[in-house]
């Protein structure tokens, strides 16, 4: 299926969860903010939240230091 991730179309496997997508991108889900179809997704929901055809996802990655 196709989703839109940070403005770019992306082919992903059916039923992919937000957690799996972030791990596939080699990022730590604890340090990534996810917004799906305009709504913020809470961190505990990443493993259960499945993407569907046409889902619009915005990911913001954070790195440490302050």
């Amino acid at each position, binding site marked *: 299926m196709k989703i839109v991730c940070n403005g770019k179309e992306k082919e992903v496997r059916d039923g992919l969860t937000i957690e799996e997508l972030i791990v596939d991108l080699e990022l730590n889900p*604890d340090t990534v*903010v996810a917004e799906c179809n305009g709504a913020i997704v809470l961190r505990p929901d990443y493993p259960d939240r499945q993407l569907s055809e046409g889902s619009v996802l915005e990911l913001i990655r*954070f790195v440490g230091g302050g």
Partner: protein
Amino acid sequence: MIHVNEVPRQFKPGLKISDLAGEIKPDADLFIVNGHPVSPSLVLEDGDSCWLIRKGEKPSAEELERLLYARHTPGVHEKVKNASVGIMGLGGLGSLVAVALARVGVGHLLLADFDLVEPSNLNRQQYFIDQIGEKKIDALKDNLARINPYLLIETIDGILTEESIPLLFNEVDVLAECFDGAEMKAAAMRCALGPLAGKGFVGASGLAGYEDCNMIRTMKIRERVYLVGDNETAARPGRGLMAPRVGVAAHHQANQILRLLLGVP
């Protein structure tokens, strides 16, 4: 017309700065005219800007306000004086954001941290060697009071969470995310895009090491929500946090906070 301590006053030909001091501030021991120290016998000219200073004396709230008012573009001082800003984390970013906003004259700061000043902090954070072991909230409050004692500085002592942030910072105009850990940076951004939507928010990510400072940018995430940094350079062994880049990022944050307070679109 001349100005004395930013107050306008009629010009009289032949008047010496010491005559002026005799009338207004007899204990003055430092005379500044148009930005330069001068001798007491200097004869003033029309249009001069004079400061009569008693060394070591703290200006009154009114005097300091006149000074800030004169320094700022018209309209800026009133807006920042009545503004409130929350700062989450008082490390390299937060301590510098607080100092910049205090110097600008932001009237109310709400500072949150759980930590103590450690020797390793002194390479970039706005604390002094005699403050090692103090709580950061107390040490920074003292330091800000030495810059401007007339600001309202409130503190929160403890560890912030994704649940407590929206409750504790609901009343501020703008919130600065100055955490060290990436997990809390993400949690704070979720608050900004979720329960705190509509509030000004300025976070930071990617400021370690000594890469090119020009990689550090202010990015707009959403209306009134911004993220500062290069998005890349995490703090890790071999790439530590250092004063210059942390300072660049902190001042990007402070400037964006100022822009939000002034209503710059």
